[in-house]
């Protein structure tokens, strides 16, 4: 195949011709560039100490290294060593390095599970039967037309860039699986389709963690939580503000979403 292009646009046009089915699914090119040089720029910019404080906020100091690590352009070891070199005490990089360790953990599990990452690792803890979950991702979710400003923005960002902050991934997965009752596999495939860092292990096992087939309880959230970590950027302009699916306390939402018997 060709190796020389005058511009990214020319590259995109060439790849659209060579991979027509992928382009038909979504022909956009991410602003996140591939290659070692781009990866090293991202690596040099990491702030592991600040990451420890604000990583859960959408504007926090997250590294965005995942597409490069996923494809072996950078290694976990490189990221770990650079993180340690940037702090006075290794403990100041603890949160950052722990997240790197999560990827190592998922990969080790993948080695034992293989294609089994597509199957429930454990029973659901939602109290609902497997049949309560739809097989396919509803079209309004996939096209970003749910009317929920947050979820629609996440889909738009995912489709345009191939990247989502980890917290957005968790909220979106919880919305799909618990609020809309869709099988986690349908959401996981949607993510794999679009994420630059799409990896069946990290991706599917994280969806299983949210769904509760790889955790002690289902992960979910309420509007207050989402509003806090997004600084209200979505809620502020949301057409259903004050009456969205995520309103209420965790206790109320748990009652609405699940059939968990009191222990």
């Amino acid at each position, binding site marked *: *195949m060709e*190796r*020389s*292009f005058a511009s*990214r646009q020319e*590259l*995109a046009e060439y*790849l659209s011709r060579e*991979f027509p*089915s*992928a*382009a038909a*699914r*979504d*022909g*956009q*090119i*991410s602003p*996140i*560039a*591939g*290659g*070692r*040089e*781009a990866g090293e720029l991202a690596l040099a910019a990491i702030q592991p100490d600040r990451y420890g404080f604000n990583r859960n906020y959408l504007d926090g100091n997250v590294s965005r290294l995942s*597409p490069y690590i996923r*494809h*072996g*352009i*950078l*290694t*976990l*070891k*490189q990221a*770990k060593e650079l993180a340690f070199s940037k702090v006075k005490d290794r*403990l100041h990089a*603890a949160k950052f*390095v*722990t997240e790197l*360790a*999560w*990827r190592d*953990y998922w990969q*080790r*599990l*993948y*080695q*034992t599970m*293989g*294609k089994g990452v597509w199957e429930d690792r454990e029973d659901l803890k939602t109290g609902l039967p497997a049949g309560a979950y739809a097989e396919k991702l509803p079209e309004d979710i996939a096209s970003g037309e749910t009317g929920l400003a947050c979820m629609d923005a996440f889909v738009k960002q995912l*489709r345009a860039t*191939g990247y989502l902050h980890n917290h957005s991934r968790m909220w979106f997965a919880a919305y799909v699986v618990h609020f809309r009752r869709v099988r986690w596999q349908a959401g996981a*495939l949607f993510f*794999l*389709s*679009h994420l*630059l860092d*799409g990896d*069946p*292990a990290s991706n599917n096992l994280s969806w299983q963690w949210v769904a509760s087939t790889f955790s002690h309880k289902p992960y979910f959230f309420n509007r207050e939580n989402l509003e806090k970590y997004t600084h209200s950027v979505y809620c502020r302009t949301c057409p259903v503000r004050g009456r969205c699916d995520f309103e209420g306390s965790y206790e109320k939402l748990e009652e609405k979403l699940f059939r968990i018997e009191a222990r």
Partner: protein
Amino acid sequence: MNELIWLHPDCLAADNPAYLKYPMAKALFVFDEDEIETEQWTLKRIAFLYETLIELPAEIERGDVAAKLLARRPEKIVTVESINPRFRDCLKQLEAVVPVEVLAAVAFVDYRGSLDLKRFSRYWKRVEPIVFDK
């Protein structure tokens, strides 16, 4: 000997162990059309990989990975290990025809021994002291 480096989507660094050990060998990356369709890749991932590949001394093809590698009639194939089941399936097909040297990938932590992977906490209990040199 006519070695061929098999680049796959888990080892795309210019200093990966295969390039380091065989700096004069030709390298080939094959976009796995079955993987692209099964995982329903969109153009974004392909473009990201493509931008990475054109920085590397490698030829690029698309199609059936094993068939494309074997079509080059190498005397030996060299690659870096991956735990992706697709890698293992392809490796079996190649090994039936030609010698394949699989080099170890750079590890996050040098841990020898078995690990309990039931939950991250159990894994981390063993690995954390090594990572933090405690």
